[in-house]
């Protein structure tokens, strides 16, 4: 064994060797490391402390820089802790503080070692133990070592004392009852002359006050003295932080502090202190106008500074001050908006937040304009941040700040066209939401939707699909506002809709259905009017030619229904057949579009357009588009397509009849057709409205219906149900291929639909016919430029323009008069979701104890509590063992019901065994002669003792000399 040890020591790899080996990397890092770890495992078991310490040092290195698990060595660390040699101890403590946590089982073994080191005469050993304790203290350790910490808090060595103060934070955290013992000494340390000690003590109080400020109000005089007297910036910063928390709680205190803080602002040259002062003023002293003014002046200086740090912090400070003093932001508007194009993304983000804070009813349009322009020229990430914040700001509180909805809706449309826009889902939501809530805006919504739908390039961008589906839905739902439903129908049925995922495609079909019904119904109404007023039907001359054409198409379509095999053949000629007739139509539409500007002329031309010919063509067009879809893979599409198809089948035989034979008054059939159409129209014409969030709650649960409370198992069922993913949208086009006789499904990439020959020719045909929907062809047929090509977007997003716009925004300060009153926005009570108050009882135990100690001892010493405290303090000072016992008891009463600590019963029973004599006496003293052997009795006694304290703690008292 001895030989092994010596050899081991002599030939052991040191940390240096390990690092050198790692850097050389002769055998690959992971291989080298696993070899080194094997060595360490062996060496750590060695009985020789030198070998062990070297091994642990290496292990700590690997653990802290390469994140190896070193829990296996925990026991060896404990072994090494007990070494008498300082160098070993140091390594062991370092390893312990690095690797131990609350769940480390060997922690229970080090209590005595820690106690020994804490009471050591070597101050460096004490320091090591304190350092380690500040990291690893558990409830047990904190409880057992409180007496030692208490002693060290008054150590004559500054070096040790300040570390003890630092440890107190962790000890309080773990074992709140230690506050009763240590708090007074901690407070005393605030008043010592040594600035380092004060600094650490203030740091601890700062941390404590952040968690629960109210408890520390009584200490305000001490903090105030430091604020006024101290010249140490580190200390001042911490004290300011404390006051930032205390001032909002006690207005008199705020009044008192505001002057010294301003004095610091004026006097100091240190940026960190200056910033802390500013932050204190803007966050907690914002009621004091002169202080805020001073702070804003300083913020301005920071904003124009070259140092990006100061600029960033200045912007942050502004955003804190913004809610209460918007003028401060408006004053610096220029800088803020300029920062939107800063090189630093963090600064950009911060200024974006500020810009959004400035938004109000009167300037939302201008600000959105500027922002959209910035979005156009920024990188995708920031662009979407801008869009996201515009969207969320505008929809806040049911579109509170929007007055002109027409403008907002067109902005939404514009945003969808911005390159990099990925906010499809949000825009979709808002478009539909506005459609349902705001009646007056629907015509504009339909117009915007039309513009989106009609652009085939947009279909190529998967991020926009959601928006397009919203547009499709809107234009179907509110088709009565449409300027030209025929055009809309074309847009809804255009070939590139095959790029849509099936669910959205289904929405398109459904919308087409609605448009169709609307057209038929309008036609019937119109015709009915015409028929009743004058019998001379101007449509009649058209009829014969059209009739024959329609007839042939109708036949082939019927055939296609009967025999799908034939249908494939039919597809070949059908389009051409139809397109001929559509050629005339689309020209007509083109002319129309130019003429339709105002609503009046639109409706006039709309009336004209519902001719017999146009309706028939529409029917055919829809049928042509829908029939292939009835064989789609997707259920939704098939379902919708079948609906439409069946409807057309139902209507079609009767339409021509009623047209031709009108004079012959075969009213029965006509009536039937119009009845069906009317029925369908009625079915679709019911207005859909928004639904309150709490709607479900108002429906009472019927008897006998058992609701499952826990829906967790639902997740396993629904886990694989997802929204249609993007890669599933080649369905439509693969369908085309199948029709063309290619039986092998071709999988296409996302970007390129890769149309087959058949497809391309169809597309080319369509393109020729409906040039209006297509972008000017620069590239090959069917190859669309990406929807979001920056080059294609208006070239107006130059810096100059931006600057001009920005200037305009800056100049125009007067409120624009809104000619239009704000339209009615439907609101439901469920729209404002109440924000649940967060749970706020975490620190109760600690703050409760602090309050007990502070208020009990300093302001209103009730007889009982004072005797109790006295007794306890005496105990603490007199003998550590006794105080320990005392603590153990308190602990038990307070936390007897907490089940989190597993190791507690063990140590506790141990403590009891050791110190059973004298226990009763102590208890009696503590509880004012009410000691009872049973814990329930003790508990009661304690409650009684606490009762007066609790009353006091609700009204914190600040000594009057301060106020």
């Amino acid at each position: 064994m001895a030989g092994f040890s010596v050899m081991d020591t002599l030939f052991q790899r040191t940390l240096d060797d390990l690092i050198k080996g790692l850097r050389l990397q002769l055998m690959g890092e992971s291989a080298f490391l696993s070899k080194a770890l094997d060595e360490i495992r062996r060496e750590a078991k060695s009985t020789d402390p030198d070998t062990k310490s070297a091994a642990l040092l290496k292990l700590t290195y690997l653990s802290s820089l390469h994140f190896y698990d070193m829990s296996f060595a925990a026991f060896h660390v404990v072994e090494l802790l007990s070494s008498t040699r300082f160098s070993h101890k140091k390594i062991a403590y370092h390893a312990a503080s690095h690797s131990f946590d609350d769940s480390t089982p060997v922690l229970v073994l080090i209590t005595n070692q820690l106690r020994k080191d804490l009471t050591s005469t070597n101050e460096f050993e004490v320091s090591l133990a304190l350092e380690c304790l500040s990291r690893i203290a558990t409830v047990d350790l904190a409880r057992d070592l409180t007496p030692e910490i208490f002693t060290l808090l008054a150590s004559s060595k500054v070096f040790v004392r300040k570390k003890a103060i630092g440890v107190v934070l962790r000890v309080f955290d773990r074992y709140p009852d230690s506050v009763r013992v240590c708090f007074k000494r901690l407070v005393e340390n605030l008043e010592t002359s040594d600035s380092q000690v004060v600094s650490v003590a203030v740091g601890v109080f700062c941390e404590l006050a952040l968690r629960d400020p109210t408890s520390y109000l009584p200490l305000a005089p001490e903090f105030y003295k430091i604020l006024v007297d101290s010249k140490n910036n580190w200390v001042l910063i911490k004290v300011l932080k404390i006051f930032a928390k205390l001032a909002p709680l006690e207005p008199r205190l705020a009044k008192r502090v505001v002057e010294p803080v301003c004095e610091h602002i004026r006097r100091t040259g240190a940026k960190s202190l200056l910033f802390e002062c500013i932050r204190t003023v803007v966050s907690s002293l914002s009621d004091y106008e002169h202080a805020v003014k001073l702070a804003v002046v300083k913020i301005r200086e920071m904003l124009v500074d070259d140092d990006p740090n100061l600029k960033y912090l200045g912007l942050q400070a502004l955003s804190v001050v913004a809610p209460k003093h918007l003028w401060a932001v408006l004053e610096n508007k220029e800088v803020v908006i300029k920062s939107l194009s800063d090189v630093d993304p963090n600064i950009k983000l911060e200024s974006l937040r500020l810009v959004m804070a400035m938004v109000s009813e009167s300037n939302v349009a201008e600000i959105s304009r500027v922002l959209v322009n910035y979005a156009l020229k920024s990188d995708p990430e920031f662009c979407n941040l801008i869009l996201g914040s515009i969207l969320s700001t505008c929809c806040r509180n049911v579109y509170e700040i929007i007055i002109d909805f027409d403008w907002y809706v067109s902005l939404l449309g514009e945003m969808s066209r911005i390159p990099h826009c990925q906010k499809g889902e949000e825009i979709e939501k808002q478009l539909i939401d506005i459609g349902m809530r705001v009646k007056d805006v629907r015509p504009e919504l339909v117009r915007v939707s039309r513009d989106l739908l009609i652009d085939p390039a947009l279909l190529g961008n998967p991020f926009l699909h959601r928006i397009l589906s919203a547009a499709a839905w809107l234009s179907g739902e509110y088709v009565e506002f449409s300027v030209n439903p025929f055009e809309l129908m074309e847009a809804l049925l255009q070939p590139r809709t095959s790029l849509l995922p099936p669910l959205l495609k289904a929405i398109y079909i459904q919308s087409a259905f609605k448009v169709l019904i609307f057209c038929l119904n309008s036609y019937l109404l119109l015709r009915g009017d015409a028929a009743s007023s004058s019998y001379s039907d101007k449509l009649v001359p058209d009829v014969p030619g059209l009739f024959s054409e329609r007839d042939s198409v109708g036949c082939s379509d019927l055939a296609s229904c009967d025999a799908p095999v034939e249908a494939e053949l039919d597809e070949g000629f059908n389009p051409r057949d139809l397109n001929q007739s559509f050629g005339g139509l689309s020209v007509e539409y083109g002319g129309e579009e130019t003429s339709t500007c105002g609503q009046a002329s639109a409706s006039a031309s709309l009336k004209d357009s519902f001719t017999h010919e146009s309706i028939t063509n529409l029917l055919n067009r829809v049928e042509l588009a829908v029939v292939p879809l009835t064989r789609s893979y997707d259920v939704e599409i098939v379902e919708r397509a079948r609906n439409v198809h069946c409807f057309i089948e139902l209507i079609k035989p009767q339409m021509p009849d009623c047209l031709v034979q009108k004079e012959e008054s075969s009213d029965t059939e006509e009536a039937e057709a119009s009845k069906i159409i009317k029925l369908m129209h009625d079915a679709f014409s019911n207005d859909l409205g928004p639904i309150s969030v709490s709607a479900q709650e108002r429906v009472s649960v019927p008897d006998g219906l058992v609701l499952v409370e826990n829906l967790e198992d639902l997740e396993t069922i629904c886990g694989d149900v997802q929204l249609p993913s993007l890669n599933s949208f080649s369905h439509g086009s693969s369908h085309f291929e199948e029709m063309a006789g290619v039986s092998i499904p071709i999988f296409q990439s996302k970007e390129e639909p890769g149309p087959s020959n058949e497809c391309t020719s169809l597309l080319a045909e369509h393109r020729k016919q409906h040039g209006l929907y297509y972008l000017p062809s620069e590239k090959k047929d069917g190859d669309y430029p990406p929807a979001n090509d920056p080059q294609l977007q208006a070239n107006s997003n130059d810096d100059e323009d931006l600057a001009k716009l920005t200037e305009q925004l800056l100049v125009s300060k007067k409120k624009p008069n809104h000619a239009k009153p704000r339209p009615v926005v439907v609101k439901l009570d469920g729209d404002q979701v109440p924000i649940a108050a967060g749970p706020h009882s975490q620190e109760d135990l600690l703050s409760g104890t602090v309050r007990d100690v502070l208020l009990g001892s300093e302001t209103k010493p009730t007889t009982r509590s004072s005797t109790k405290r006295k007794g306890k303090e005496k105990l603490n000072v007199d003998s550590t063992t006794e105080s320990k016992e005392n603590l153990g008891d308190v602990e038990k009463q307070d936390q007897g019901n907490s089940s989190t600590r597993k190791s507690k019963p063990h140590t506790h029973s141990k403590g009891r065994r050791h110190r059973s004599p004298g226990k009763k006496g102590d208890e009696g003293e503590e509880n004012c002669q009410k000691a009872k052997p049973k814990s329930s009795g003790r508990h009661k006694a304690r409650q009684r003792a606490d009762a007066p304290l609790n009353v006091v703690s609700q009204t914190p008292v600040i000594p009057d000399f301060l106020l």
Partner: protein
Amino acid sequence: MIQFVLLISRQGKVRLTKWYSPYTQKERTKVLRELSGVILARGPKLCNFVEWREYKVVYKRYASLYFCMCIDQDDNELEVLEIIHHFVEILDRYFGSVCELDLIFNFHKAYYILDELLIAGELQESSKKTVARLIAAQDSLVETAKEQASSISNMIAQATK
């Protein structure tokens, strides 16, 4: 308070990690990966603060090393920048114009210095001189202990045990 301190080289190698709040080894790796991605990607003339989860990370680059400290929302960024600078100055004084290699081979000493500077995530000593004195005193303690250990009589005692 300071949640943790990281030293990352420009190549993304870790040179020092010190955790003042509990993180498991797994979380530590994750944190490091996340942060080094964010911080190393930032250009030279940007501000030294990054928002990360619910914290803020203050970093500063000295030569090839990034010194990062993660702090709470309420903490003062500029103060932390000063602490970082303070730490660097002390390291510089101790190693004599410190370079990355010093920290690579004396990683434990960098820890000891940090431990004298911060405790429980708070600054405990703002005087460079004091820290230097304390470190020197402990070094000499370690040295004497080592000398004792390596004396021949000790070796013999060990071997014949």
